[in-house]
Each structure stands twice: as C-alpha cells, then as structure tokens.
C-alpha cells in the first residue's frame, strides 16, 4: 500500500514537469526567428511548397490548438513528421533510443567499476598518499573534455593497438558491446571523477558508522564487512549520484556519439540541428527530457529496494 501511494505521489509530481517540458519542445519550432520551413529549405521554398508544409505541420492553426494536438499526438507516440527525411519522427527517434540506452547502461557500469574501488580505497586511506593521488586523478579527469579523451582512446586503442572499432554500432549483442567499448569508456572517464568525489564522502560515512565496528566485534572478516555492510549502504549514494548526473551523462553521450559516429539520439540531435530539422529536434528534446525524468523515477524506486527507511519517512 505504502509503495503504491509513493509511486502515485511521485507520478503526480511529474505532471507539471512533463507539461513544462512539452511546452518547451513545442515552442522550439515557433521561437525560430523567421519562417522555420524557409530556414529548413535554405530559403529555396516556393510559396506553394511553403503553404503545403505549413499545412502538413499544422503551423497554420492557432497556437493553442497546435499545442493540444502536439501533446495529444505525443501521448499516443506520434511526434510529427520530418519534412527533410519525409518520415515520422517517432520512427526516426525510436530507432536511436535503444543504442543510446545501451551506451548509457554500459558506460554507467564502467564508471561504477572504476569509481567504486577507487573511492573505497580513498576513504580507507583518508588524507594519506593514496587518497591524495586519487583526488588529483579526479581533478584532472574532471577537466578532460570527453571529445578529446575519445580521440585519445581512438588513437591508442583503436588505431595504434587496433583492439576496438572506432565507429559504428555492430550487428549482434557481442558485436555491439564490442563497438560500444571506446564510446562507453570515454563517457565513463568523464563520469567517474564526479562519482568518486561523492562516493568517497559517503564511503567515509559508512566506514565510520557504529554498525561497522559492531560487525567487527561480531568477528566478521574485512571482506565480508565490505561486501555485506559497506557496499550495500554505499549503493544508495551511487544510485543518487548517477540519477542526479544523468543530465551530464546524456550531455557526454551527445558529444561522444557524434565523435564515434554511434547511431544514437545524440548524433541524431547534432545532425538534426545541422539540417535544421525542427520536428526531429522537437521530438528529441521531448525524448531526452522524458529519459531524465524516467531515470530519476527509477532511481527513487530503487532506493526502496535497497533501503526500506525511505518508505516510512
């Protein structure tokens, strides 16, 4: 019962955000200075094609009706039509959603694999050499632009060592994993310093908690204490930090997908902006925002599986 109430409450909170997000996505095309169709067609549209395109996109109707139709159609999964590609936007975008989610999951896992042991080491050796070294690596790592790191990885692992492909997507699961290694590593290297910073702090809290000493007093070994008592409690901040940084994760993905010609939402966005394909830009901004909202919702729900206290507070 509590669980259901909680989920319903969270969904209700999302409603105004979804309305605001859709409003921004909707207005994107209307805020373009000049005629969006004319800009899309590079000024070469005749009055007839202009009128036809306006009618096709519904641009000739009152704004409020247009918005109503936009949001109604979007709710049914119809994001309009790309004039340039002459195809439904939902199809164009939907086809890229999978690869991007794949990339996000892969790079999050990689980032955790990098960040978890390092932050644990830093927390156990507070203010000693290892801690300072890890902090310095974090500081420098944080300042490395993903597009540059990606190029370095491409140069070294892709070209010099020739271990991994430097572009494309792949055919089956293993092949896709293979193609996603370098892009994911690039995103993970951007995300890991952010994760390490907040994880180190929360690891410190957990490591100095009374129940860790109690566990030692029970005669548990360090390894068991780590796995059973530290990691599970430290997972809560991992989930939070990942969810809070999903925006940065996606931002990194945009650049990295473009760099590695990875067929995801990010490279589609960059291309759509290049072509001034406004319906696709609209659809994409909506999908990106919904992705952020959904990830945050999932994070909230997963807290409850890790820590039951959330439900009662």
């Amino acid at each position: 019962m509590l669980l259901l109430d909680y989920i319903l409450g969270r969904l209700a909170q999302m409603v105004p955000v979804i309305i605001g997000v859709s409003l921004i996505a909707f207005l994107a095309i209307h805020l373009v200075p000049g005629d969006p169709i004319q800009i899309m067609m590079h000024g070469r549209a005749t009055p007839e094609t202009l009128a036809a395109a306006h009618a096709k996109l519904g641009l000739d109707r009152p704004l409020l009706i247009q918005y109503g139709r936009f949001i109604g159609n979007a709710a049914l999964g119809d994001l309009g039509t790309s004039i340039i590609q002459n195809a439904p936007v939902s199809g164009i975008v939907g086809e890229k959603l999978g690869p991007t989610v794949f990339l996000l999951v892969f790079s999050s896992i990689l980032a955790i694999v990098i960040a978890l042991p390092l932050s644990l080491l830093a927390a156990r050796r507070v203010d000693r050499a290892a801690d300072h070294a890890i902090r310095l690596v974090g500081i420098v790592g944080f300042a490395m632009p993903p597009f540059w790191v990606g190029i370095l990885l491409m140069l070294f692992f892709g070209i010099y060592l020739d271990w991994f492909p430097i572009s494309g997507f792949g055919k089956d699961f293993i092949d896709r994993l293979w193609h996603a290694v370098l892009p994911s590593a690039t995103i993970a290297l951007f995300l890991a310093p952010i994760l390490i910073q907040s994880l180190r702090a929360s690891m410190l809290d957990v490591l100095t908690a009374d129940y860790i000493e109690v566990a030692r007093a029970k005669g548990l070994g360090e390894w068991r204490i780590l796995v059973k008592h530290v990691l599970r409690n430290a997972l809560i901040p991992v989930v939070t930090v990942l969810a809070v940084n999903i925006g940065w994760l996606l931002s990194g993905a945009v650049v990295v997908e473009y760099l590695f010609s990875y067929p995801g939402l990010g490279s589609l966005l960059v291309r759509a902006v290049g072509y001034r394909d406004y319906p696709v830009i609209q659809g994409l901004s909506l999908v990106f925002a919904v992705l952020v909202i959904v990830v945050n919702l999932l994070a909230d729900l997963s807290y409850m599986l890790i820590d039951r206290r959330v439900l009662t507070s």
Partner: protein
Amino acid sequence: MAPLLAIEDLVVEFRTRGGRIVALNHVFLTVQAGETLGIVGESGSGKSVLCRTILRLLPTPPAEIKGGRVMFDGEDLLDAPEARLRQLRGTALAMISQNPATALNPVWPIGDQITEGLRVHGRIGRREARKRAVELLRRVGIPSPELRVDEYPHQWSGGMVQRAVIAMALAGGPKLILADEPTTALDVTIQDQILALLLDLQAASGMALVLVSHDMAVVAETSDRVAVMYAGRIVELADTRTIFREPRHPYTVGLMQSIPRIEGGAGRLRPIPGQPPSLADLGPGCPFQPRCAVASPDCATTPVAPVEIAPGHWSACLHPERVGALL
C-alpha cells in the same frame, strides 16, 4: 584462580595533528569469571578506548599500542593474530555499543544481524540461525519475536534495538561482555530495564560483564568492583562497598558527590570544579591536581602510580589519607 581478563601496564597512544596523546597510561585491571566490573569516568577518560583495545578494534593508525598485556583466558590478545581475534570476537568476547540507533545496519533485517556472527563462525546454517535469532530475541524480552525477527531496525524503538544488540552479543555464548555505556542514549525508564536485563542474563549464563559508564549511580547498583578512570589512567580500584564507603581518591569523591540523591536534596549536589585536562599537555604530576581540593604543591611535580593501600584497594593519590576529610 586466574582471572578471566587481566590487563597489565597497557599503554595506548594516539597520533594527531597536535602531537602524541597518551590515551591509556599504564592501565591495569582484572575481571574474574562471572564478575561485573564497573568502569567510571568522565567522557574522554579512556573508557571506550580501553574496551576497543581489549577487542583489538582500535584503528591503528592513528592509535598505537605501545606496551602492556591483555591476558584473556590465558592468551595475550595483543599478540594474537587477526584470525584468532576474529574467532574470539562474537564467541568468547562480545561488545555492546553505546548508541542503539546506529549499532545495527539499517539495510538488513534484525534477525540476520543477530546471528550473523554465528553463521560466519560456521556454527549453524540459515534455518537454524533463524530459530536461534527468535530464541535470543525472546531471551532479551522482545514480545512475539517470531513475528518481529524479519523487521528492520528503523521499525523498532531505541530500547528494543538495544535489546536486539544485547541479543547479538549473547549469540556466541560469550565469557565476557564489554558494555560501553549501554544505556546512555536511552530514556531514563528504559535505562533501568536494560540494566536489569543485563544483570539477569549475566546471572543466568555466568558470563563476566564489564560495564562502562560515566554515571556512578549506575555502577553502584550493578557492579561487584569499580575502577575509576581519569585522564587515561586507573586512579582508584576497589570493590563497590569499599569504594563508596572509604574512597581513597579525591576524584572518586567528586564523582560520588555529583550523583543527585533523593534524601540529600539539591544542596548536596556538588559538581567537580574545572574541566577534564587536555591529554595533549599533562604535567609530570597528578593529572587531577588542578581540580583537587586536597592537593599539595608536590602533587603537581611528583609522578603518581596506583598503590595497593589495602588488599584489593588501589589508589593513585599521593595523599590518600586526606581524602576522608572530603566526605
């Protein structure tokens, strides 16, 4: 008969930014099997450090054990390898910590945590563990334990969690329980219940109990013998009767007179003047001398060590004969 626990000449230092601090200064103690020893002193006097040293749970660094012996049941815990210590913890030796709110891991069911030590020490399987958890919870007075064994710490009150923590300490059938201020964080009415429970369990199982407290009244009610700690040292040690009737250290008198008494009224309540000393800059003499009403000039300069002034009665005062005048 050899004592269950014998601490001899234990010295523990802490390294801090401000320099070295002697947290335990030539501490000595014995605990007989089945006995209750009370350790009293203000916060910072080294009581908790002592408990953690016995269990070897002090983080080193910053702590450093500089010398002494901790003989438990015939073996020196300071020499024991980590594997042996792990074996002893949660079986022959157990600890009850101060704050029940943080003593249990919030993300696991209480029953699991109570028997975790047993399972790790390879004594029982999962199903057996659950049965034992229910049994232990019943022993510490949790109503309908079979329904509550799978609940989480946040669902229980502080007093109940402390009972669970006691059950956890009992799980391995210990010979000695170190209870570090087990009632300080609880409501006054619950405090008495928990103390009574501890004494009942002790009487039933024959284990020894070291009860650490800053409260002379708690120790008076419960202990066979009392050790008074000040600035990392044992300043007086005697059986409870003696220490209350004929204290031979001015600090003990100060602690006793700061207990409120019903018959005495507010007028008799006399707090000890001054602050506990900073362990970082102690002079060569008696650490209590700046706050002492019967100190003489030599107290500031002459090093003091505990002396057995009567059989079983130790005092670290240069002038124990003057203490009677304070009563």
